[in-house]
């Protein structure tokens, strides 16, 4: 299987070069006035509409590793591998419910990562740090697994593989990753967003062709299911039990359901998924996408069936045996045996590019988390946007190097174990992030202890499970009260129980809770993307509040979410500054602030208004606290976060 397939290789290399060109060109796509801002580099300017978001989220969530690992699981154990399908079915209704709230609050408060939201919502640096650290820890092995996906394709193509020299063996992988790192560094989230178009087109073409073409060559679906059923019912000599089943047996149903539910709940607290959500232009974009992204789920379901197809091809079974029983080779082998070289090349390119997109988004997401929640919070509270962007770029490089180290130096199973742990860990941030979107009933300290308890239980329990020839980290489910349950779900229940009990205890003792910097209206805010003011006029892009906005803004300006005194006449009389009325937005918060500041800010000539307000805003930044402070002690941890 290690003969070099020239045609396929040429096609793979050519697509890689095309994608590289797109990646570098992405830096000029929808150019920003101020590229050195984290909103630009890290979130693509927060301007992606339904169409781009669909590609980006789809390209980001349905990773190459999924496309390799899910059919590999189906190939090995049958129906149990289909939990991935039921998980990606139920994830969209769940996302439909909470993701719009997360988007709104992030937009209203300028958050770029879930860690920041948690810090702001619960008024707790510690909790924000916990969420950020969990996110980074869970993301790193995930990136490494994308490399594992690429590696299995390269092995089948006949590159690398057998050489004992680590540099020769892994040179293609290192080269590919270096190139990806370079354009991610330059273009930020715009690069994976553009490349996702290529990736997804290739994936859809491959899957549609494969699903129509391969079964006819294998003698139809009846034969495919027949062969698989026969294999799954034979006894595995290692365990003394059958390999698996064509349908989940009653004993496995609880594990199947909890695995699906746990993965679905965890998906959108993963930083890379949150990044995809934050980059959307409007609130509606997310809901519409939760109705459109199931298209990828369908593709995933069809790809899972590749596992059965691979089982029905004797050459694939022989190839997998020759590769030390590595089931992850089954799909690339299926392509290379069933397709002519040129189409196998396209399919392999789909997998490789499919690994690059999520790897780039993940490294950006982790970099955003690091920059805002760790670097800025702990070391440089007054960091300028340009400095943030610089740090984030470097952090994304570091993440990639770290992941490469994981993939090359450490045993492959170690990455897979860590990925398994990552899923368990990331779900432990669910109470702080998702439940925090709805209620602040939980005490911030209780949430930290709950998180610790969940992390500890999950790690220990995962360590104790054996299976698949491993003494530890053998499986993701363990037996609880007679039911085999996904460890992450058990850990989440423990997490919630500890948080709830401690919340009651802490409240009883009157332990101080954090200060919530968000407002109820933030969670339903749907701001129109504001136009950037021209740099010549306004040194800082402050929004000058205007009581005479463009007609389209009038209804919103007239109805702030709570009753408020009418704006002072001075503002009302303000003529629209040389026709730029539509550029100044009357966001309710700035309107509100203008009211508070109006006595202080003497109305000047129109040209000076923007700057005057900006200055006044900066000088009196603490004024947004009082009305909401009623009855709530102010946290000592509240940092002056704005310059």
């Amino acid at each position: 299987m290690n003969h070099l397939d020239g045609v396929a290789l040429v096609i793979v290399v050519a697509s890689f070069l095309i994608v590289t060109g797109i990646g570098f060109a992405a830096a000029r796509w929808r150019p920003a006035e101020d590229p050195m801002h984290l909103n630009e580099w890290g979130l693509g300017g927060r301007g992606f509409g339904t169409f781009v978001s669909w590609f980006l989220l789809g390209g980001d969530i349905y990773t190459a590793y999924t496309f390799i690992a899910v059919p590999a699981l189906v190939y090995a154990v049958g129906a149990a591998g289909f939990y991935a399908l039921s998980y990606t079915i139920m994830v969209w209704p769940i996302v439909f419910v909470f993701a719009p709230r997360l988007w709104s609050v992030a937009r209203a408060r300028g958050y770029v990562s879930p860690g920041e939201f948690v810090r702001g919502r619960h008024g707790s640096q510690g909790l924000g740090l916990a969420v950020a650290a969990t996110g980074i820890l869970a993301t790193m092995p995930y990136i490494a697994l994308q490399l594992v996906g690429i590696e299995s394709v390269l092995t089948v193509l006949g590159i690398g593989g057998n050489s004992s020299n680590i540099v020769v063996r892994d040179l293609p992988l290192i080269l590919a990753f270096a190139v990806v790192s370079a354009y991610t560094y330059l273009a930020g989230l715009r690069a994976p967003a553009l490349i996702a178009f290529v990736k997804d087109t290739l994936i859809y073409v491959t899957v549609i062709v494969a699903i129509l073409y391969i079964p006819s060559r294998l003698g139809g679906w009846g034969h495919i299911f027949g062969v698989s059923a026969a294999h799954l019912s034979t006894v595995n000599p290692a365990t003394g039990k059958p390999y698996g089943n064509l349908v989940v047996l009653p004993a496995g149903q609880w594990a199947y359901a909890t695995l699906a539910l746990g993965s679905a709940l965890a998906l959108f607290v993963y930083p890379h998924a949150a990044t995809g959500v934050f980059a959307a232009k409007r609130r509606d974009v997310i809901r519409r996408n939760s109705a459109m992204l199931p298209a990828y789920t369908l593709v995933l379901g069809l790809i899972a069936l590749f596992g059965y197809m691979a089982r029905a091809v004797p050459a694939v079974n022989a190839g997998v045996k020759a590769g030390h029983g590595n089931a992850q080779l089954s799909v690339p082998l299926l392509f290379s045996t069933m397709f002519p070289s040129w189409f196998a090349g396209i399919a392999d390119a789909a997998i490789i590019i499919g690994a690059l997109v999520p790897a780039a988004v993940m490294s950006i997401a982790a970099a955003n988390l690091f920059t805002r929640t760790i670097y800025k919070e702990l070391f440089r509270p007054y960091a300028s946007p340009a400095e943030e962007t610089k740090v984030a770029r470097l952090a994304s490089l570091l993440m990639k190097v770290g992941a490469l180290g994981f993939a090359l130096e450490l045993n492959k199973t170690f990455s897979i174990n860590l990925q398994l742990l990552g899923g368990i860990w990331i779900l432990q941030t669910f109470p702080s992030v998702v439940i925090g979107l709805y209620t602040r009933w939980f005490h911030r300290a209780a949430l930290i202890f709950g998180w610790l308890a969940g992390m500890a239980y999950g790690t220990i329990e995962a360590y104790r499970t054996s299976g698949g020839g491993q003494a530890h980290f053998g499986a993701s489910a363990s037996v609880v009260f007679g039911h085999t349950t996904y460890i992450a779900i058990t850990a989440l229940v423990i997490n919630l129980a500890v948080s709830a009990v401690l919340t009651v205890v802490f409240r009883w003792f009157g332990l101080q809770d954090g200060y919530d910097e968000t407002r109820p209206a933030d969670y339903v805010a749907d701001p129109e993307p504001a136009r950037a003011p021209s740099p010549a006029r306004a040194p800082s892009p402050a929004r000058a509040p205007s009581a005479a906005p463009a007609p389209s803004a009038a209804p919103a300006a007239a109805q702030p979410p709570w009753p408020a005194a009418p704006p002072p006449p001075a503002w009302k009389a303000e003529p629209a500054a040389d026709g730029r009325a539509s550029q100044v937005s009357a966001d309710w918060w700035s309107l509100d602030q203008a009211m508070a500041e109006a006595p202080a800010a003497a109305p000047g000539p129109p040209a000076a208004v923007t700057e005057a307000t900006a200055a006044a805003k900066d000088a009196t930044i603490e004024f947004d606290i009082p009305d909401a402070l009623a009855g709530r002690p102010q946290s000592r941890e509240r940092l002056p976060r704005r310059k």
Partner: protein
Amino acid sequence: MVRHASPTKSPVIKAVVAFMLAVAILGALWVPIYAHVEPKLGAFPFFYWYQLILVPVTAILCWISYLLLRTRPARQHRRAPQPAARDREGVWR
């Protein structure tokens, strides 16, 4: 120019949306209802074709929910494009 996804949707609409989304989630979560071989669709055991059909069903339920909860009229999405319409500073920083 802020708009709010109005929280004033009627409770009936909210209940309908909650019901539809619950159906979509439970349809996948409740494994015993679909862990069977029969009835087959072609060569496909029920377990497989049920889940594959549930995917578009979920998508349609989400789309109806989106239409029910939508707050701004559809044509507003097709206003003149705003190439520079991006938020440089986050909002309120």
